């Protein structure tokens, strides 16, 4: 069953067109990567889905057309976006950030259980529950952003450059936790990642974007080591 489907999606910031016909699909419980060089349109593809950029084409999620919805409406349908550059609420505590993530839920007991789960997934956050998010390290903020997205219990997680600005070891820890989250929760994921190794550790299939268009799509096994991948990342 296809959970998310993009067909010939275009997007522009004012007069600048960034997406020029992107198509991809994410099956239920699947994990799909979007690869490509800087400026290829990876982040914009995620923003097109979560309703933060003006778009054309077709975007269907869970059987309904979601193009043109506001980002809070998209979130309410079961899509959680972890934006580039974290996405924590700096003046709110770690616990409050997680509670904001669960804003649309009414099951108070399950919310507490899920907070416990987040702290188990990211043990680094355990001692920081009462600290404000802005006081956390970059890695801890990224963990919190993922945790907050999970708290919504979404069907689909949009993950944008979770390794950005993190030390290699920290980035690896974050990805290991996300992989565990995927296995244990079955949440489908659409992952943008510059670091190909990290990306392939998390996704089953991937599509490569170049100047706002798909140039290549395949399974992780097919794509690993291909020249196009190296070119897309190194721009050479």
């Amino acid at each position, binding site marked *: 069953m296809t959970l998310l489907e993009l067909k010939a999606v275009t997007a522009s910031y004012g007069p600048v067109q960034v997406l020029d016909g992107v198509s991809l699909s994410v099956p239920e419980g699947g994990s799909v990567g979007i690869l490509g060089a800087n400026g290829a349109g990876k982040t914009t593809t995620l923003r097109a889905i979560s309703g*933060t950029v003006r778009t054309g084409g077709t975007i269907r999620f869970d059987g309904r057309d979601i193009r043109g919805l506001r980002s809070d409406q998209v979130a309410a349908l079961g899509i959680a976006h972890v934006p580039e550059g974290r996405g924590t609420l*700096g*003046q709110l505590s770690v616990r*409050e950030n997680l*509670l904001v993530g669960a*804003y649309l839920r009414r099951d108070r007991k399950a919310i507490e259980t899920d907070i416990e789960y987040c702290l188990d997934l990211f043990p680094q956050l355990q001692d920081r529950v009462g600290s*404000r998010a802005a*006081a956390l390290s970059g890695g801890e903020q990224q963990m919190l952003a993922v945790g907050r997205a999970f708290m*919504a219990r979404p069907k689909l997680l949009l993950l944008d450059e979770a390794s950005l600005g993190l030390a290699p070891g920290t980035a690896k820890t974050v990805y290991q936790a996300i992989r565990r989250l995927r296995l244990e929760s079955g949440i489908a994921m659409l992952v943008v990642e510059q670091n190909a190794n990290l990306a392939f550790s998390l996704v089953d299939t991937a599509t490569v974007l170049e100047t706002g268009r798909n140039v290549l799509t395949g399974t992780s096994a097919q794509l690993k080591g291909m020249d196009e991948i190296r070119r897309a990342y190194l721009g050479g």
Partner: protein
Amino acid sequence: METFIQLVVDGLATGSIYAALALAIVLVNQATGLINFAQGGMAVLSAYIAYVFVQLGLPIIVAILIAVVLSFVFGALVERFLVRRFERGDPDTAVVVTIGLLTLVTGISAVLWGYNNLAFPSLFPLTSVEILGAVVSVRSLATAVTIVVIMVVLQLLFLRTKLGLALRAVADNPSSAAFSGLPVGRLLMVGWGLAATLGAIAGVLVAPQLTLTPGMLDTALVYALAAVILGGLNSPIGCVVAASAIGVLENLVAVYVPLIGHDLKIAVPFVLIFVILILRPQGLFGRKVVVRV
């Protein structure tokens, strides 16, 4: 000594007026991240609305309740149709817009009701009681109690309720909050509506004492802003403490320091602010805003 106590008590009474307005400013700031300079003007407009219903023969408490409800609607509409256009842009622009709004609202009050002082009936009895040798009017006492109750309710709203959490999340980062499904636009309207409600209560509490004029709260707004800065932009309790301190201090200084007297006493809170902000930039009770890039 009796004069001293009387001055302190009177100061606390005026301080509670500043506190009411300061709380409304804190509420808007917590809920939207902005400072609304029109808060005083909007509060006066609310008091005029209550006045109209009193003139129509309604009991004062009913008139106030109607004004409070209409103020909520007015505040929400101001956010939706005026402030919304400027929220995502430069905060400086939004601040100037609220100053423009202050001028506009004051002008509307003046056009509709003129500049003559209108007598506004008091919600509380006009009797006095004696406390420690000082004469305290029941009205001042009741006003102060009302303000403290509102302060506690606000503190609980922000720190203990889901709505409060959502308001703070939206103020912190609206687009990020939307990713968790928070209806940002509606929450901003609620924040402005609640602040206008608070302003309305402040307006009707002080109107009997100051008598109703379009510029009734202009001076109070200056002191309220001083209290907000002094107490900390994100601390309702801090604002009330600071507002009371300012009220008492200006009274004491006006009488005991002849050089300053009644003409210069408005400068006192600002000298105080200057000194305190050097020592504690986040205000007396405020939390430091940490930004890590």
